[in-house]
């Protein structure tokens, strides 16, 4: 048995509970045989304390008054005896007897009715008590459920607070990442732009422009410009105001590579009547470095190795 129940049993035994608490406890005890037994024992123990009270004789007149009233009640409770007339012949006696019999029967009926009513009331009381117990049980269950719900609610509240804090922290992190990302984007754009610039610069750096000049008077008025793309290993030659070559001859372009003992053949160039030509060329061998470009007059159709006079060279 729990200590709390023993506490209540002791308090109830000494009548230290208020009326409401006492009623609740009595219902509890009615359902719990062990508790009821303990309560009865403690009630008797408490009553035994009466022996420890100093005896004090009450005033004599009190006894007289009490006994007088007791006797009155005793008299009132005694059945009324009616003198019976002992005359067999008397019709009055028979009449009285009949009346008494009828009265007795009526009283018996009344008693039977009352007994039935008492039984019915006892039944009603038992049902009411049972309902009270059921209501109390239901209330106990509800209280336990409420307590459980409250506990869960608190747990959820705590979890919710934690989650909100985590969410706030994550939002902060996301915000920081966004800022960092925006910075990275800006940096990327800058780098892309710089890369673009560098690429353009690099492209320009890879493009080599060379102007070819002549020491021969007949070709001094001619203009020859070579644009060389070292990465693609190809180039463009533009000729203007070049004198026509004699029959059976062609201009031929050469690329001078310091690592190659002979100029590398870049192809035959034919100018029109105005002395103009613009041709794309690609050397027949790999050129590691285009140190110079040269234009010579060679046999028609060109030659693998330079034979004729160099008329233009540059840069």
């Amino acid at each position, binding site marked *: 048995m729990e*200590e709390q129940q*023993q*506490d209540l*049993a*002791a*308090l109830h*035994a*000494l*009548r*230290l*509970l*208020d009326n409401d608490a006492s009623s609740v406890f009595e219902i509890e005890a009615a359902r719990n045989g062990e508790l009821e037994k303990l309560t009865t*024992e*403690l*009630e*008797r*123990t*408490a*009553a*035994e*304390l*009466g*022996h*420890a*009270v*100093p*005896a*004090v*004789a*009450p*005033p004599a007149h*009190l*006894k007289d*008054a*009490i*006994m007088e*009233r*007791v*006797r009155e*009640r*005793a008299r009132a*409770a*005694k059945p009324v005896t009616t003198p019976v007339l002992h005359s067999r012949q008397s019709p009055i006696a028979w009449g009285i007897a009949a009346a008494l019999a009828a009265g007795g029967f009526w009283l018996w009926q009344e008693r039977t009715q009352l007994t039935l009513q008492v039984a019915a009331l006892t039944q009603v009381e038992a049902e009411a008590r049972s309902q009270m117990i059921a209501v109390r049980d239901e209330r106990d269950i509800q209280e336990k459920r409420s307590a459980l719900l409250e506990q869960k609610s608190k747990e959820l509240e705590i979890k919710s607070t934690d989650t909100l804090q985590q969410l706030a922290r994550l939002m902060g992190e996301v915000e920081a990442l966004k800022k960092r990302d925006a910075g990275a984007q800006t940096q990327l754009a800058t780098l892309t732009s710089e890369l673009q610039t560098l690429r353009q610069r690099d492209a320009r750096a890879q493009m080599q422009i060379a102007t070819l000049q002549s020491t021969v008077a007949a070709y001094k008025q001619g203009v020859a410009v070579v644009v060389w793309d070292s990465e693609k290993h190809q180039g463009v030659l533009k000729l203007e105001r070049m004198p026509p070559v004699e029959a059976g001859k062609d201009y031929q372009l050469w690329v001078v590579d310091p690592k190659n003992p002979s100029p590398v053949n870049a192809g035959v160039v034919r100018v029109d009547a105005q002395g103009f030509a613009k041709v794309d060329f690609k050397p027949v061998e790999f050129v590691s470095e285009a140190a110079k470009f040269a234009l010579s007059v060679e046999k028609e159709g060109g030659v693998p190795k330079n034979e004729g006079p160099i008329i233009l060279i540059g840069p």
Partner: protein
Amino acid sequence: MTSSELSDETLLQRAGGGDTRAFEQLYDRLSPRLFGLLRQMFNDEREAEDVLQEGFLYLWDHAANYDMTRSKAFTWAVMIFRNKAIDRLRALGRQSRALEAAAVESATLEHTHDAADVELESKDRSIQVRSALGTLPQEQRRLIEFAFIKGITHQAIAESLGLPLGTVKTNIRRGLLRLRDVLKGGLS
């Protein structure tokens, strides 16, 4: 067997059968202790007399319901009289008076010698109960005596004695359980 040799229980049973002489004898045996209890509870002679009268009339009216297998006549009577006194005290709103300093101080079961006309059996039992009370720790004894005499709620006891409620409950429980164990065998 003379009527003076009859037990309290037998007298009460006879009273339940309408025997006023038996009841009168029972009154002579029980009333001094019961009146002493009521005087201590009320601290008022007049109130004690009223409740004594009310209690004995109740005892007469309900004597037929008494079951001697369940309790001694005296303990049954104490329960009845004490309940009536508590009902009266609470109805009169006497809690405040019960808590007066003087009342608090006097709320103990004084150790005095019983009058010569008190029954021997009652004297013996009185000695046994006082002896049992003497085995309790002081605080438990004080609280139980106070509770028994004042009949106020345990909350009011805690308030009047300036003790925590838990202390009051624990001491009363432990004290009463110990008292039961010590008196065991003597109880009906």
